[in-house]
């Protein structure tokens, strides 16, 4: 598609696009990239630091990437201090066997990108329960990234319909709809989110929570989009081809679907891309305070909840890395949105 080419042409678009592709690709194939299941508790490695990867051990004639085993001692503050146990060498193998999972939910397999056999490799360190943070980021990404997309898409869909109908018909319908939009927009979104969440029972299954969050986020976001689509619809309905369609006898519904809404898509596309960060942060926010995705399920938001104490951050800084992923994703979507907006600027007459 032309738009894709244009995005890749610009430097900012290129970077953003490929980083996002990389992220989404990794989380789609999360089980393949992850060496361990996301709920793999291992108390022996609680808050283990990221494992160092070595490439050369002349004594044991070990070439190629490998890790050492880990043991710990308890110091005078009753804290663990991890040390490497050079007696145990675990080479890193690729395409190795690991835990069983269903590839793309269809084929059962146990192949993973990499593994260390009996050893434990923590690329980005471990959390309180000894679970691999790298793995949990991958699995958590599935939730955080998908909620963003789906929520934004649903919002956009509702916004298109409401805005399109309201702008096209004008008059009392328009007045009434816009007042409702304004009421929704007035309420600070985060509090609205909390209120909506609180109106449902606290203990729901993880799938239910997932769907609920999507519904809540969509409910908050449609109003702003609807307003702008409505503005566009008002100016679009004065176009001669709309009058021509009316003169032909085309029904109002068909006119809106065929002749008005498609012309709002250039804006709509930019709007959806720029809203996704808000949804990702919304989910992260809910999960952070415990109202979103629950343990042992992972989401980038609830991964950060263990990072809420300054002591933990100081001692185990790697638990902040999920936050880094959130930041990178949000920045990339914003860059992508900006690039798209420049490309789709009506003055450039691309669409």
């Amino acid at each position: 598609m032309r738009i894709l080419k244009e995005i890749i042409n610009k430097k900012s678009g290129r970077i953003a696009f490929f980083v996002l592709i990389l992220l989404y690709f990794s989380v789609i194939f999360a089980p393949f990239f992850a060496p361990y299941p996301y709920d793999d508790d291992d108390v022996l490695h609680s808050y283990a630091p990221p494992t160092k990867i070595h490439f050369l051990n002349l004594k044991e004639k070990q070439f190629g990437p490998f890790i050492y085993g880990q043991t710990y001692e308890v110091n005078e503050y009753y804290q663990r201090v991890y040390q490497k146990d050079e007696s145990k060498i675990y080479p890193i193998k690729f395409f190795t066997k690991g835990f069983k999972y269903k590839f793309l939910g269809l084929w059962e397999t146990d192949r993973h990108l990499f593994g260390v056999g009996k050893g434990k490799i923590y690329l980005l360190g471990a959390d309180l329960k000894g679970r691999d943070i790298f793995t949990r980021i991958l699995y958590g990404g599935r939730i955080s990234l998908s909620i963003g997309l789906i929520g934004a898409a649903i919002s956009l869909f509702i916004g298109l319909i409401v805005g399109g109908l309201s702008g096209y018909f004008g008059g009392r319908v328009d007045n009434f709809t816009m007042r409702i939009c304004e009421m929704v927009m007035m309420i600070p979104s985060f509090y609205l989110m909390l209120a909506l969440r609180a109106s449902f029972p606290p203990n729901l299954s993880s799938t239910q929570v997932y769907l609920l969050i999507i519904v809540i986020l969509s409910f908050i976001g449609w109003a702003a989009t609807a307003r702008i689509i409505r503005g566009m619809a008002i100016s679009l309905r004065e176009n001669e081809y709309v009058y021509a369609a009316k003169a032909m006898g085309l029904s109002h519904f068909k006119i809106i679907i065929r002749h008005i809404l498609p012309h709002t898509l250039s804006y709509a596309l930019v709007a959806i891309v720029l809203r996704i960060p808000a949804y990702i942060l919304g989910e992260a926010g809910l999960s952070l305070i415990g109202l979103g995705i629950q343990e042992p399920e992972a989401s980038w938001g609830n991964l950060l909840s263990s990072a809420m104490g300054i002591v933990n951050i100081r001692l185990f800084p790697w638990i902040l890395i999920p936050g880094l992923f959130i930041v990178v994703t949000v920045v990339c979507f914003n860059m992508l949105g900006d690039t798209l907006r420049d490309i789709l600027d009506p003055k450039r007459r691309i669409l």
Partner: protein
Amino acid sequence: MENYKILNTENLKVHFLQKGKTIKALDGVDVFLKKGLVTSLAGESGCGKTTLAKTILGFYQPKEGKIIFNDKDITLKKNQKIIRENIQIVFQNPFASLDPRYSIFYSLYEALSVFPAKGGPSKKIKKSESIPFIKKALAEVELEEDIFERVPHQLSGGQIQRVCIARSLINRPSLVILDEPTSSLDVTTASKIMKLLIKLQKELEITFLFISHNLKLLKKISHYCFIMYRGKIMEYGPRDLIYSNPLHPYTKLLKEASEQKLKYLEEQKGYLSGCPFLSRCPLKKSDCEKESVRKEVEPGHFVYCHLYKG
């Protein structure tokens, strides 16, 4: 030989509210269209000619008055369907008249698919079945078939206007309104389109309502002329009489202006009653503040002006 009046308006009034003021776009308009003939509506910007076209099409609701089409009042909601089936329009700006996202084929197919084509299958037509109708429609306006797949921005203004004409004729309506169809076109293109319109009108015997500000252009195609100014009819009659013997001062000025002979004309000022042209008329009398009455000065040639005693 009197042609049947296919459409006529009775004291049509259309008012708009703009920034608190009432704008009388149509202020008691009586026009009629004779079947099979070209009736032209001449006037400058703001005279209400486009408003009249849109009111006939049902886009505006009149405050007062009726529009009788084939003995039915089409200002009533229940008769709206009659408009869609029998009255079509060609707009001034070709580049805005077609949805830029769709191919020419689709735009024409859309027109066909709403109502059954006269002489075609009675159900809503399928795309594949519509192809021969569309080909015929394109041939009528002298366009090649290979235009099917093209999109508006790939065509010239003249070609697009031909497509719009084809679209308006495809369901063989009894009346086609043409609102300044050549004003946005180049001279060479405009002259070809006018030739085409004259030819089609004769062949298909369709009634045309031709709207324009260009008196010279209207002379070529009209059988009947109405002169409009500020929402009111000033004068009307057969084309030859209007051009050889313009009666209303405004018509005379329009004619002079079209030959670049008009040197000076007062600016328009607001008016309270009577003739809207009062403030600019070089021949005004005290009578002109009263509402103008229609007078037949010669057979078929009517004027709304106090200068003439019927």
